[in-house]
C-alpha cells in the first residue's frame, strides 16, 4: 500500500518502502529541492522541514511515518510569510533548513521574531559548511522580524560582510 504524503498542501503517493527516509521521499517523489541531504545523520539540519507544524530533521524520520501528515518545506512558505525574504533565488545547502527551523519555532512562540538573541541561539541547531553561517543566520533573524510581505531589500544593508564580497 503506498504512503500518502501531504507536502505543501499537495498530495503525493510515494513508494512505501519502510527504509526510505522522509527526506529521500520528498526529494525523489514530491518535487522538493529545498531540503538537502547534508550529513544524513541528524547533525547539520540542512534537511529541516515542518512535520505537523514542528521543525524536524527529515533524515531522521521515515516516509512511512508521515502517512497523511502535513509536511511543509521552504517551497511551501506562504506568500506573506516574513521568512520568504530570507530565501533568495538560489538555495545554499543550509539556508532552507535554517529558514524552516525558524518557521517552526515561530509557530510555537509568536514573540520569538522580536528577540534576535533567542532566534540566533535557536539557529545554532543547524550547521553551515560554507562559512557564511553568521551572515545567513543574520538574514533569517532579520527576515523573521519583517512585516508580512516585505522583501529582503526592505531591511537595508546587512550589518555584516556582504555575501558578494570578495576577499580576504
Amino acid at each position: 500500500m503506498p504512503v500518502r504524503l501531504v507536502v505543501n498542501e499537495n498530495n503525493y503517493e510515494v513508494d512505501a518502502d519502510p527504509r526510505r527516509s522522509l527526506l529521500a521521499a520528498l526529494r525523489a517523489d514530491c518535487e522538493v529541492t529545498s531540503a538537502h541531504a547534508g550529513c544524513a545523520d541528524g547533525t547539520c539540519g540542512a534537511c529541516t522541514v515542518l512535520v505537523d507544524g514542528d521543525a524536524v530533521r527529515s533524515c531522521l524520520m521515515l516516509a512511512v511515518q508521515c502517512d497523511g501528515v502535513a509536511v511543509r518545506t521552504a517551497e511551501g512558505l506562504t506568500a506573506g510569510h516574513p521568512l520568504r525574504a530570507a530565501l533568495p533565488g538560489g538555495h545554499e545547502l543550509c539556508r532552507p533548513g535554517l529558514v524552516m527551523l525558524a518557521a517552526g519555532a515561530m509557530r510555537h512562540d509568536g514573540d520569538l521574531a522580536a528577540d534576535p538573541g533567542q532566534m540566533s541561539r535557536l539557529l545554532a541547531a543547524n550547521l553551515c559548511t560554507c562559512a557564511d553561517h553568521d551572515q545567513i543566520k543574520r538574514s533569517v533573524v532579520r527576515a523573521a522580524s519583517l512585516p508580512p510581505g516585505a522583501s529582503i531589500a526592505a531591511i537595508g544593508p546587512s550589518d555584516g560582510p556582504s555575501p558578494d564580497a570578495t576577499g580576504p
Partner: protein
Amino acid sequence: MKVAAMDYVAARSPDEVLAVLADGQASVLAGGQSLVLEVTSRAAQPRRLVDINRVAEFEVLDQTDGMLRVAPLVRHRVFESDAIDGPLGDLLRVIVRHIGHPPIRARGTMLGSLAYAHPAAEWPVAAAVLGAELDLAGPDGRRTLTAEQFFTGPFTTARRPEELLVEVRLPALPAGTGAGYAEHRRSHAKFVEGAAIVAVTVADGLVTGAAIGLVNVGPCPVRARAAEAALIGGPFCDAAIIEAARVAAEIDADNRAMTATRRGAIRMLTRRALTQAREGV
C-alpha cells in the same frame, strides 16, 4: 548506504505494540532520533519496526499525588514548559535544555532515551538521581525496576526484546530542594564529556537529602554516594560543596579511563552543579 530490509507496523494500541514485540524481533520506534540513524547507518538491523507514534494512550503526562508519570510518547520538549511544578519541574527544565536541540527535542522522547541507555545521555542519570521507577510491559504482564536495576551497561538495559518501557514514575522532590546541572562538552553539537545532575534538600539550615548523579562517567548512570553522604547532616556551605566535589571526583566508576583530567572535570562539574542547587534552595 542501503538500509537492511525491514517491516514496519504503525501500532494503534498498547496491546498491538506488545503483540508485535512478542517474537523479540522488533525495535520500538518512538522519537526515532537515535533509532532511525542506527537503522540508516546499519548499526541496527531490526527485522521489524513497531511505530508507537499513533498510540494516543502513550502521550500521557500526569502529575498527581507527588508522582510524575511519564508515558512513552512524552517528547523532550514537554519538559521545557512549566507543565511540571515544584523543584522536580525546575530540575527537569534545567536538564532538558541541554538535550540535542529544538528539532531533536520536538521528536525525541524521555522513555526512548532511557531505553536507548546512551552513556552520555542526561535522562538515565536523572532517573537514577530522582529514584525513578521504570515499568516494563511484556507478555507476562508488568514489572517495575529501579534505575539501578534497569541500566546494565552502555546501550544495555534489563528490558527484554519482547518488552516495552511503558511508564516511568518520578517522585516529586520535597520543598526546600535545589537542583543543579553542569556539563562539559566540546561543542553544542557533541555529546557531553561529563555532567553532574544534583538535587539537594535543606531543612532548618542542614542538608537532609542529597542526590548527585554523574553523566558519561561510567558504563551506567553513576551516583556519587560517598559525596552525597558527605553533604547530608551538615550546612550547605561553600566548604561542604568543595568537600563533596572532592569526594565525588574519587569515584571508582570506570577505572579504564579515570585520568586526572577526568577526575578534575568531575570535581569542577559537581561543584558547579551544587553551587547552582544552593541558589535554588
